[in-house]
């Protein structure tokens, strides 16, 4: 929907062509692109203003104008500046002088506080802790039930007193309860509220005073627009927020709100939520968010997802099979299934720098249905056939087509393509042995 900054800068500098020296005006045009990209990523307009000014200063100082690749140089500067603002180092959770560790969750309605209370509890238990979740949202219908249901799902203790009590008392009682039973940390889920709601904001202040939390996490939706700063400022002023949890990062929002909040309030970003499942909580990496705001792809996340799907031994075994030209349809199928479990293909491609924008330009739609077809065809083969695709004769092809509900042509096509692939892999193997790299690859190596 939106062009990425890298696309735009390439375009802007591209227009200038090879006319030689760039002028200060050219840099100004580029800064306009930067400004626009940041605004479209929901970075707060005040933050954008300061940001562009400092990038421009650096750009002029570093002679972007003289650079052979001004677009890259400019993107590099923007990227560095983004990371600088986002905080170069990871911010861990605060540890209390003496236990228990009390974590309070706060934020607007619908940001994902209750879900992230569950996620955080699970995350901390994985580190060997024994967390207690506290249901202090007595306003939203069934909010207490929701936390209880989450508790059952992950077998986590929940403290609740129903919806008839004062949240301040609930929090205070929960801490006492936890100390008696040996729970630590204590994670308090509070009701969603508008930062302008005086009464409810005072309630948070009262909870804070009552239990003296080690950590107050502001839970914010990655899709939030320009208001993010105002909201965070207000919560911060009242509560002295110690960290930000950025939720719904598995969507396609650029997440500029996080940058704004960090820039204006200085609250460090501690976690990001990347899915509805309770294990979808990740530590925050500034470089990745910077790349995302710029639309530069997210190779690190891609590699990480790939690593989750495969072990090193698997990879080595596969590599040697490929080299020897023994890669068969069974390997192909299992590889395909691994890629598939990494997520929708379109989304994976968007993580690769450059590919995302090319895809959008070509309006290419790679459907996951194609996967299914291929899968059906291979699964209709016998194990022997999968290992010896070259021996699949016409009667077998007919049977496979019938079995998978596909056309004969589709079966033929798959087998032909696979044969080409095997041949190419064989060549790789040969060349690798001889120590040279193949020419005329279907893609360019960087």
């Amino acid at each position, binding site marked *: 929907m939106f062009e990425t900054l890298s696309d735009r800068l390439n375009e802007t500098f591209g227009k200038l062509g090879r006319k030689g020296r760039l002028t200060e005006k050219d840099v100004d045009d580029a800064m306009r692109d930067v400004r626009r990209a940041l605004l479209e990523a929901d970075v707060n307009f005040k933050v954008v203003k300061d940001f562009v000014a400092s990038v421009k200063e650096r750009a002029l100082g570093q002679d972007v104008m003289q650079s052979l690749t001004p677009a890259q140089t400019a993107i590099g500067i923007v990227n560095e500046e983004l990371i600088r603002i986002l905080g170069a180092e990871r911010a861990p959770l605060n540890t209390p002088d003496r236990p228990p560790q009390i974590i309070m969750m706060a934020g*607007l309605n619908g940001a994902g506080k209750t879900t992230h209370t569950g996620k955080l509890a699970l995350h901390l238990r994985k580190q060997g802790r024994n967390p207690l979740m506290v249901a202090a949202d007595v306003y939203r219908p069934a909010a207490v039930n929701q936390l209880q249901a989450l508790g059952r799902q992950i077998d986590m203790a929940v403290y609740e007193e129903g919806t008839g009590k004062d949240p301040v008392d609930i929090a205070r009682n929960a801490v006492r309860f936890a100390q008696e039973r040996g729970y630590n940390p204590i994670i308090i889920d509070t009701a969603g509220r508008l930062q302008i709601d005086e009464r409810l904001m005072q309630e948070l202040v009262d909870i804070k005073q009552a239990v003296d939390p080690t950590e107050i996490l502001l839970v914010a939706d990655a899709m939030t627009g320009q208001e993010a700063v105002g909201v965070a400022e207000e919560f911060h002023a009242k509560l002295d927020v110690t960290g930000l949890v950025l939720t719904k990062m598995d969507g396609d929002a650029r997440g500029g709100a996080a940058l704004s909040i960090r820039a204006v309030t200085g609250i460090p970003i501690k976690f990001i939520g990347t899915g509805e499942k309770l294990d979808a909580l990740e530590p925050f990496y500034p470089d990745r968010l910077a790349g995302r705001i710029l639309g530069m792809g997210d190779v690190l996340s891609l590699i990480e997802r790939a690593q989750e799907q495969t072990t090193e031994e698997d990879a080595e075994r596969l590599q040697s099979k490929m080299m020897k030209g023994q890669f068969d349809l069974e390997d192909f199928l299992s590889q395909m299934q691994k890629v598939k479990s990494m997520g929708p293909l379109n989304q994976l491609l968007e993580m690769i720098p450059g590919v995302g924008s090319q895809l959008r330009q070509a309006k290419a739609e790679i459907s996951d249905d194609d996967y299914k077809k291929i899968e059906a065809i291979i699964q209709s083969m016998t194990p022997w056939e999968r290992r010896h695709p070259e021996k699949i004769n016409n009667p077998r092809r007919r049977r496979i087509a019938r079995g998978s509900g596909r056309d004969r042509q589709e079966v033929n096509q798959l087998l032909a393509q696979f044969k080409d692939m095997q041949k190419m892999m064989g060549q790789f193997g040969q060349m690798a042995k001889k120590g040279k790299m193949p020419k005329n690859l279907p893609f360019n190596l960087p």
Partner: protein
Amino acid sequence: MILKRMFRRRQEPDVKMEQGLEKTRKGVFREITRLFDRAELDDELFEDLEMLLIQADVGWDVSQRLVVELRDRIEEDHIVNPADAREILRLEMIKLLELATQNRKIKLLQRGVPFVILVTGVNGTGKTTSIAKLAAYHKQFGRSVLIAAGDTFRAAAIDQIKVWGERLNVPVIAHQQGADPGAVVFDAVQSARQRGIDVLIVDTAGRLQTKHNLMAELQKLRRIIEKQIPEAPQESLLVIDATTGQNGLVQAAEFTKAVEITDLMITKLDSTAKGGIAFSVAREIGTPIAYIGTGEKATDLAEFNPETYVDSLFFGEGEGF
């Protein structure tokens, strides 16, 4: 047989919407009016205006266009008085929303055919609360209402809608958590037909538009409804949180692709957010806004009116009425 116009155009000013927007307008957006409170039209004014629009999440593109169009008009018509310029801007903004509102189909309630409202949106926009509001809204016209608890994913979403059902005295069709939402919807449509229900409101689990399988599930829900009632869902509603930034445009595009969104509902307008994304959606996709949500109570719902919206959120009190 056509019984009655489903949505009456109200003649009197929309008191409800105005009251709901009371809190919002106290914000910085009086500044647009204040901005034009000067002796002459200078460059600084236009720069500040663009910033104010962007600050309201109107988006770079639309803000830019509004400002450029305003400057063009000022030049063409030789306008020197800032108050006149402000009026042009105000009308432009109303026109932008009206263009989309014109796409709003007049929906008719037929005897014996349940009017089905499919309610969709990303997580946390306030779908369940909005459904309670819609139920209360239709009940006030004496219509019988049934709710389908189609969010079987989020923990306790079913409990949440049941609480509302009890409060509003509206029956709820529900299965257990984790059940197939398709089965819930199927049962609900059947039940609505058997009971001769006027309005069936279908809740769905929140989903991000990037989740292909969940978007496909939504399409399936729509098909299940369509199979039993060919003209349904008569209203396919996308709920957007007013605090949403530019991603709202992507949401509108993707949900429209999946389930042919007919109308938008903008929620949480009692916050400080301006819901400026509505302008981008109106311009780029043309989806009309039908309702706005202005609080956590079941009665905090208003029919959308472009003029009230623009006046309340952007031009402060006392304008346009």
